């Protein structure tokens, strides 16, 4: 670092900071570092905010004020008494007296009047007899903060309307079947459909997936071309979009296998609305099983691979066969990891929509699925249908359904994470 002899101020070669420059340089670098650290942290905060916003948005739509108006006066129908004071039998009588045979037939098809709850029957009367209709729907935030303004607006436009606080998610919602009227819409059919499809999917996918993983990790000679092909194939399948699986399901399970999936070869009856085809629970379950199979296989493979080899050696050294070693030593050790992967896959299957659209989840179905050969709908499909409708009240119903779905997924995922953490703390480290 020589300065020119004639001009000590000019430096002819580069130099590192010295003296006061050092402080300045470091200070600036640290400042920049802190700013960017803040930016990195901000992106994580953004994710949290996004999650929070989503939850609040759903909640905003799931609760709020509604204004309903009836064209027929309550007193006329009940002789002055409150609807809520009437018994079920009396309510059924009112319905039968005040509605056409066609309406009653439809109601009975959805669910026999005699079996309905009191609240349900009140709801039916409000809609079918009193011709109650929604004239206004408000989200939660607005309902809380602008009540007076809402009441004023309603008083002006629909003076006969009543304003009531409504939670779109309520026990009736969970137990009623579908309806074309938002106030009556229920999730029961979809919840049962989800249960049926998910359980059947699990039954198909879990044993096959775990066995395939055992084969690949313990039995297969990984150097042969065919075993490498199987492994590559599984990795590829895990990345295929879910809608493609739906197309596979449509073409094969719904169409080619129709005699089987419709239940015709077993002599099953119709799906409830007169037609018999392959768009059934079991076709959906096959499709979803194929979808989650690669995920289960890969997760199980990782869990099996994580079992220390010394344990296997100890077992073989005692004269155990391969299956004895797998069954008694490897699987028990790998079980927590396998279980976590399985639970997460099932959770994924419960939330999938696109493949089921293709496989033919019914858009409007009122009878509960009664077996693997029934027509069906699932919760995510209902959310899709309701969200697609332009009316705000259907968006609110969708929000209620979303809450149900999110709770379900949350239960699945939380148990998977807890399981993983619990077993991680008890891991054998050899």
């Amino acid at each position, binding site marked *: 670092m020589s300065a020119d002899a004639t001009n000590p101020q000019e430096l002819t070669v580069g130099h590192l900071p010295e003296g006061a420059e050092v402080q300045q340089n470091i200070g600036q670098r640290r400042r920049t570092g802190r700013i960017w650290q803040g930016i990195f942290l901000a992106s*994580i905060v953004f994710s949290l905010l996004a999650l929070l916003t989503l939850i609040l948005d759903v909640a905003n739509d799931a609760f709020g004020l509604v204004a309903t108006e009836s064209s027929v006066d309550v007193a006329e129908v009940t002789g002055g008494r409150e609807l809520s004071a009437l018994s079920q039998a009396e309510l059924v009588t009112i319905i039968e007296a005040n509605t056409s045979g066609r309406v009653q037939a439809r109601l009975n098809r959805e669910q026999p009047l005699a079996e309905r709850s009191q609240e349900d029957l009140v709801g039916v009367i409000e809609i079918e007899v009193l011709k109650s209709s929604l004239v206004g729907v408000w989200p939660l935030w607005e309902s809380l903060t602008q009540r007076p303004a809402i009441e004023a607006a309603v008083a002006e436009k629909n003076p006969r309307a009543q304003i009531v606080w409504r939670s779109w998610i309520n026990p009736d919602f969970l137990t009623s079947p579908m309806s074309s009227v938002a106030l009556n819409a229920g999730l029961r059919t979809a919840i049962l459909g989800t249960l049926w499809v998910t359980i059947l999917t699990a039954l198909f996918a879990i044993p096959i997936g775990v*066995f395939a993983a055992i084969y690949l990790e313990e039995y297969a000679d990984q150097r042969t071309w065919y075993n490498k092909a199987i492994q590559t194939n599984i990795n590829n399948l895990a990345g295929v*979009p879910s809608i493609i699986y739906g197309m596979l399901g449509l073409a094969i399970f719904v169409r080619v296998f129709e005699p089987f999936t419709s239940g015709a070869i077993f002599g099953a009856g119709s799906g409830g609305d007169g037609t018999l085809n392959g768009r059934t629970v079991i076709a959906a379950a096959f499709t979803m099983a194929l979808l989650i199979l690669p995920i289960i296989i890969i997760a199980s493979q990782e869990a099996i691979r994580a079992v220390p080899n010394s344990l296997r050696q100890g077992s073989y050294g005692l004269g155990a066969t391969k299956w004895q070693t797998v069954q008694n030593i490897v699987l028990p050790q790998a079980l927590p990891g396998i279980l976590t992967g399985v639970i997460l896959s099932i959770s994924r299957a419960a*939330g999938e929509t696109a493949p089921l659209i293709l496989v033919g989840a019914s858009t409007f179905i009122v009878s509960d699925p009664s077996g693997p050969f029934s027509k069906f709908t699932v919760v995510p499909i209902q959310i899709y249908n309701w969200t697609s409708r332009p009316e705000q009240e259907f968006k609110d119903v969708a929000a209620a359904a979303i809450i149900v779905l999110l709770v379900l997924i949350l239960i699945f995922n939380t148990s998977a994470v807890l399981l993983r953490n619990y077993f991680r703390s008890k891991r054998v480290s050899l």
Partner: protein
Amino acid sequence: MTDQARARAEAAALSRPAEEVLDLRKRTRVGESVIQGVLFLCGILSMFTTIGIVWVLIQQAWLFFGNPEVSIIEFLTGTQWTPEIGSFGAWPLITATLMTSLIGMLVAIPLGLAAAVYLSEYASERARSIIKPILEILAGVPTVVYGYFALSFITPLLRNIFGNNVVNIYNMAAAGIAMGILILPLIASLSEDALSAVPNSLRNASFGLGATKLETATRIVIPAAASGLAAAFIIGISRAVGETMIVALASGAGPNLTANPFDSAETITGHIARISGGDLSYGSIQYSSIFALGLLLFTITLILNILSRRLVARFREVYE
């Protein structure tokens, strides 16, 4: 008896009499063979899935392109998709797919990478144990919920900001943003894996030369993890391209060739979902058209996934 003597006696009692005949012949273990067969079948099943997908897609696409109304050239280059009048140019669908995926990646990649950098280079163990589960929750939200979110929150927000006449009720931007939020955790997690795989010795060398954390992270770690990161981004793109529900709900219900993100347009996946949700008669040209689109989609995502895995393999070679 002393311990030793007792041990001796026990050992004596245990050992085998030497005159016993030694039979070491292979036993036919039927159980083992059966089990091995069953396991092998399960392994093979995945091949059937792939064969099934390829067969189904190609067979129907063959029918589709065999139809006199349709030509492959038009499919790949045509700009109008109106099945009613026999126009089957896929470009409007392709551009919509590209646009929504692009917007999604513009959201997911910077944010995901930033989150990954924070998690891998800055965060304490405790912070990581809190943040990672939250990201996992975000990733676990079903896509249909994100579609709802796009429609009921993001679109009104965009309309508020940019004006009702600029932003359509159904628009690609809202769908893209929601997709970005959906994919963000995936990119964050995969990127974090890539960054963590960079050996600590590199970081230590950088610190030893007097570098700050930021300088180490941006000039040493990220470049070292480059192919792993690229692989992560490509997986994200693949995910975005194949995503259906968000675009089906929020992006629009009709093919539209446009470069304006605030316009409504239908993507490949959205179109397939809409058409098959309605009445679809088997054997109609509409039916086979969705399989042709499916084949296109499958090919794109397959190429992306293979590319991504090659990158990961190359990345691993360097560090293991």
